[in-house]
């Protein structure tokens, strides 16, 4: 078997980067979102601004951080302060265009669980880290992009715990909850890209990754959804891969 031209992580980073428009303010968490936003800055979105919740605005990263509290996020920052300044003056005030989220479970309306598995969160079978800033980003960014591993048990009909609200029960339920903006625009998975119909917030498959079929994606998903009409995800260009490997993550922190 031939060595594939790119890994799944590389593909996902490239797909995530393409979701960011130039000039946008991006609230980035650790891992794939950092790869995505750094790649976007180096290709089509040189003026996008990175916000890290631990307290920095507009970093010019020289080295990939391993946490949002990493000293590396200080490099070239325009402002350094604390979480409160970022969460209020920037995020809650409506200045974040795109937030990235991930989690252990994602449901058909883009609700995310990163708290625990089991029906009673007081007696979980598996406990995770908890929300961190994810709930806040999900509530207050203008739109969110979700990164997820595509497995049937990770894409259930309903998540065990809504850590980060997506479109809730679809339709107008998000607005009715009192949330004033936001909602997931896409879910970049290991198998494809999920989006939501504007009129009712139902999930549909927008693209499937090279080598897969819509049917394969549907079978790896725990809820019924529209997968016809999906097109193949455009594969990473050589230039995207080169920049990702040589400039963004030469240490192979996340590209492993």
């Amino acid at each position, binding site marked *: 078997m031939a060595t594939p031209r790119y890994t799944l992580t590389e593909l996902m980073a490239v797909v995530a980067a393409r979701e960011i428009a130039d000039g946008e303010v991006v609230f980035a968490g650790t891992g794939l979102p950092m790869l995505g936003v750094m790649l976007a800055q180096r290709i089509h979105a040189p003026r996008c601004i990175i916000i890290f919740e631990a307290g920095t605005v507009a970093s010019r990263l020289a080295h990939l951080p391993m946490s949002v509290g990493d*000293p590396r996020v*200080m490099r070239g920052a325009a402002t350094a302060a*604390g979480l*409160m300044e970022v*969460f209020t003056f920037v995020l809650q005030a409506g200045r974040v265009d795109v937030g990235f989220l991930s989690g252990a479970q994602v449901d058909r309306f883009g609700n995310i669980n990163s708290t625990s598995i089991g029906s009673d969160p007081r007696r*979980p079978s598996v*406990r995770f*880290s908890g929300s961190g*800033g994810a709930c806040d980003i999900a509530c207050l960014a203008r739109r969110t992009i979700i990164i997820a591993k595509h497995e049937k048990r990770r894409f259930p009909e309903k998540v065990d715990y809504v850590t980060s609200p997506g479109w809730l029960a679809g339709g107008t339920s998000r607005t009715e909850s009192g*949330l004033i903006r936001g909602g997931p625009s896409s879910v970049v998975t290991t198998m494809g890209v999920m989006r939501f119909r504007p009129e009712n917030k139902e999930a549909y498959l927008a693209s499937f990754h090279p080598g897969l079929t819509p049917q394969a994606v549907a079978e790896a998903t725990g809820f019924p959804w529209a997968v016809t009409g999906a097109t193949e995800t455009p594969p990473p260009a050589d230039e995207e891969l080169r920049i990702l490997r040589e400039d963004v993550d030469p240490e192979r922190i996340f590209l492993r």
Partner: protein
Amino acid sequence: MAGKLMDLKAAAALVPDGATISIGGFTTQRHPMAFIYELIRLGRRDLYLFGHSPGGDWDILIGAGCVKRVELAYEADEAFNTVGPRWRRAVERSEIEWEDYSNFSMVARFTAGAMGIPFMPVRSLLGSDLIRQETLTPEQRFADPRTSPRKLHVMDSPFNPLDRVVLVPAIHTEFAVLHVQKATDQGTVRIEGQTFADVQQAMCADVVIVTAEEIVEDDVLRAEPERNPIPSLAVNHVCRVPYGAHPYAVFNYYDYDPLQLKEYHESAKDDAAYRRYLDRYVVGVKDQVGYLEAIGGSARLESLKAKPPFGYRPDLKRRV
């Protein structure tokens, strides 16, 4: 003037069993680890911890059996380990009580306490299970004044009935413990880089203990008062603790220690291995000097030293 300098062991001994405490830093940076290790050596029990995104500071305390209840948003070392191993086991085994919030809502709670108001309104949490679900029972809350009588309160704005906010209750702790770059015998404190929620955590505590990489002359820090974000009158005790945050980073001083973090996380997944880790690095050594020897002494520490102008170690081998 008397001065606020205190020996680290004496400062740690101020914290009694059952105390409410918040600890500075964020996941992989500026946790007062040397202070944490002293609390473990002292065998403290039943601590109540309040935090936003702690890392191994809480994890090792929880594993050592020092903690009764936590209120938090996140417990992990991010890319070094996506969930604190001892935290995870303590929850799954019902060895600990906890309540879940988000980072913003926890920091808003510290801020309300620091500001002297009973709550802070936020627009987060709406629609999530962080609102609908509570881990602590009303009985647990009412029986214990160390915890707010209610997790939160949803209300519509009196200025616009269509505008909904969540009021999150203020936090007041008996102790806040921070690790910073520089401090003085007068309690003046310099934080370099991100401040996280250290300022608010300090201002909502009865007693503030600051451990610092360096003690400098008060006049040095007073020459740039814009960079001293914690009013010195709120700082009670200052301890000189070089490498006091190891294995975590301190901007402009040293980087995180990937070798030590890996050893901790791998050990902490297993009860016996965690015990051996504790013995080797914490309870089996007398103090911070002993700890620094145990982790490899000056050779290891030298390899972590920050390089100007980066404030971290650009050539650090991070995936080990």
